[in-house]
């Protein structure tokens, strides 16, 4: 069972994530967009969207540090476990609260503002369910696990993180995850579900973060003969139908 949940399922999701993005980019550049609904409604979005997105940037940063940075490294530079814990929980709580508040505003907006609700696809709703579940479970792990220490203390840096790195190194150690508290297990599973859905949702816009804007010239000139985007050169003959 451990092997299925913590080896097979994650790799299936990772494969879907990678191949799915490649496929989507190859065949659906036109659909690759934020699908913004700001045109319909501005007041709630102005509050909720920056809260959610900036909170999310913090959350992602925290995950990168927590999952990818081995405990031995922070020990080596003299950061004690307690000091790390305090910083991580504080930062995590701030980012997490921002994300949750932003998310609540955005979901409320999506449900109550008529045009926004009409523009919501089934895929959006599925994605929202997974995203919200992952965020809520993540907050639960932080608040209940680390702050209130419900069900004993658990140092994820000695369990989940090592499993995650072993997973990325293609030498997964499923037992580490199997021993983790149920909250972490559910959070990881929901997150992997979200990763599998990712390429088929509007979340792809994450990979379009326009950092190139900082360096490119203001006015872009492009020749007609490039025909990028609108038209790809195709073969000049047709399949035989005989």
């Amino acid at each position, binding site marked *: 069972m451990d092997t299925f949940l913590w080896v097979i399922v994650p790799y299936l999701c990772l494969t879907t994530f990678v191949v799915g993005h490649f496929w989507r980019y190859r065949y659906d550049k036109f*659909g690759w967009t934020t699908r913004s609904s*700001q045109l319909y409604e501005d007041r709630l979005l102005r509050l909720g969207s920056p809260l959610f997105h900036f909170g999310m940037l913090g959350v992602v940063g925290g995950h990168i540090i927590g999952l990818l940075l081995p405990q031995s490294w922070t020990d080596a530079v003299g950061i004690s476990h307690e000091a790390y814990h305090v910083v991580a929980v504080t930062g995590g709580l701030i980012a997490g609260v921002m994300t949750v508040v932003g998310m609540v505003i955005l979901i409320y907006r999506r449900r109550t503002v008529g045009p926004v609700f009409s523009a919501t696809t089934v895929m959006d709703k599925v994605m929202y369910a997974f995203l919200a579940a992952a965020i809520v479970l993540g907050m639960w792990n932080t608040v209940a696990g680390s702050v209130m220490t419900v069900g004993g203390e658990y140092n994820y840096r000695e369990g989940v993180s090592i499993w995650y790195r072993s997973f990325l190194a293609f030498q997964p150690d499923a037992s580490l995850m199997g021993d983790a508290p149920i909250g972490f297990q559910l959070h990881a599973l929901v997150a992997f579900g979200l990763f599998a859905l990712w390429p088929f949702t509007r979340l792809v*816009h994450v990979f379009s973060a326009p950092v190139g804007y900082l360096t490119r010239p203001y006015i872009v000139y492009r020749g007609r003969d490039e025909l990028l*985007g609108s038209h790809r050169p195709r073969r000049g003959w047709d399949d035989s139908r005989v």
Partner: protein
Amino acid sequence: MKVMAQMAMVMNLDKCIGCHTCSVTCKQAWTNRTGTEYVWFNNVETRPGQGYPRTYEDQEEWKGGWELNSRGRLKLKAGGRLKKLATIFSNPKLPSIQDYYEPWTYDYATLTDAPAQEHTPVARPKSLLTGKNMKIKWSSNWDDDLGGSAATAKYDPMLKKIADKVKFEFEQTFMFYLPRICEHCLNPSCAASCPSGAIYKRAEDGIVLVDQDRCRGWRMCVSGCPYKKVYFNHRTGKAEKCTFCFPRIEVGLPTVCAETCVGRLRYIGLVLYDADRVLEAASVPDEHDLYEAQRSILLDPDDPEVVRAAEAAGIPADWIDAAQRSPIHALINKFKVALPLHPEYRTMPMVWYIPPLSPVIDVVRDTGEDAEDTGNLFAAIDALRIPIEYLAELFTAGDVAPVDRVLKQLAAMRSYMRDINMGREPNPAIPAAVGMTEEEMYDMYRLLAIAKYDERYVIPAAHSEQAHSLEELGTECAVSEYGGGQQDLFGEGSGVPTPIAVENFQMLQNRQTADTLASPDDKGSRVNLLNWDGRGKPSGLFPPRPDGPGEVAEGSTPDTSHDGETGPGGTGGLTGGADFR
């Protein structure tokens, strides 16, 4: 000197009758789709008026275009690159749909299928965004012909600048129409605002386009454009804008708006400009100098030096020839009667306008004086400060002198030509009074009054050796794919790209067959006959056959044997007969 060619347009506002034909044909061609219901690439505004979207010209509010920073350098009015990225999660200056208008349709079906009742059934307006009943409050030309302007015209940002004097003269007011399309600027702030770099200026003809595959829907272009001529398609989540009908231009045809213009007031042609001096011209400190600065970077195509530089820059000889015959060059730089729209936005717009003399003429005629007499007209131009100042706010950043000069040229032409038409001796003093020779005056009259199709539209086609890759001809794609293409994946328009030409716009086709407006559960799909070319059989066009399994049976027994049984019309035979698969 780096010579580049720019396709440009001039509109002669004196001839605009405000019929909106350009808007309607443009909409039918380009924005007749879900997601762009509220979008008018071409719209006609009544001035004074708020425009579309409402008060778009108030850049203190909307922050479109460029401005000079404290060091005199050009910067985006809405803030630079870092600020753009910092506010990317919620664009601070995006007009809401209410600033345009909430698109709607009417529930026409109730008119025919309502049960018998005491009162006549009505077609209620339904929002195209929510499908619910709505109250219509505004639209793209709600204040057409000054309708309701007594209440709303005071919000006109241009009128506000000269507001004090208008109040008492508003009864004897002036009115004219302002048709607007994308300006295809030399220094486009929409392109500069785009975080993804999806908006580009075509190197060959300067047409500004949005790459639909690169646009990620950040909406900064909508805020960046001071003319608000980039629109957000709320269905696809991508920006769209006027394309200058490039598939038509490439084969030498004028744009749809120009082609269908009833007043024949639009001119299309090439200008050559010095790309190296665009930034310098856009950065002149005094706004009043912007008109002259922009005029000065447009090069004289008859200058041998310019021709040499153009050839060196790879501009084909027939394009240079077209630039020499260009009516745009003549109107902007030879007769100098065309003026740019809002040069103070510093985007170097390339759709120019000949300001209307008609408000002045109307006033003179109403007084009973001779409205063709130069003396009367000149006096009126001097006296009617408010219309002139208003025009100056539109076309010369508030500088009255150029508008004054142009109107006097137009008035002089009127008087001078009347003498000729009446068989009297032409008076050389009239052209001289506005600094023109008799010959120039007559040439200007020819171009403004009687220029034929090929003089109004001097459009060099793209080159025949590239023709196979042009959108409108599109012979690079296999024939069977032309109408079909691969239509799966995510929603409309995805899959193998099909040529973007209007006639086979895949999205348009999808819309017609999948249109379930406001989701009428009790009705089948609706068919838009406007775009049915008579070939093929859109599903839902004909009712299912009473005896058959829904659709016309294909490939079974020959249709002729069925015809007798299908009853009147024989619709089954009509489509089945052509089907020899």
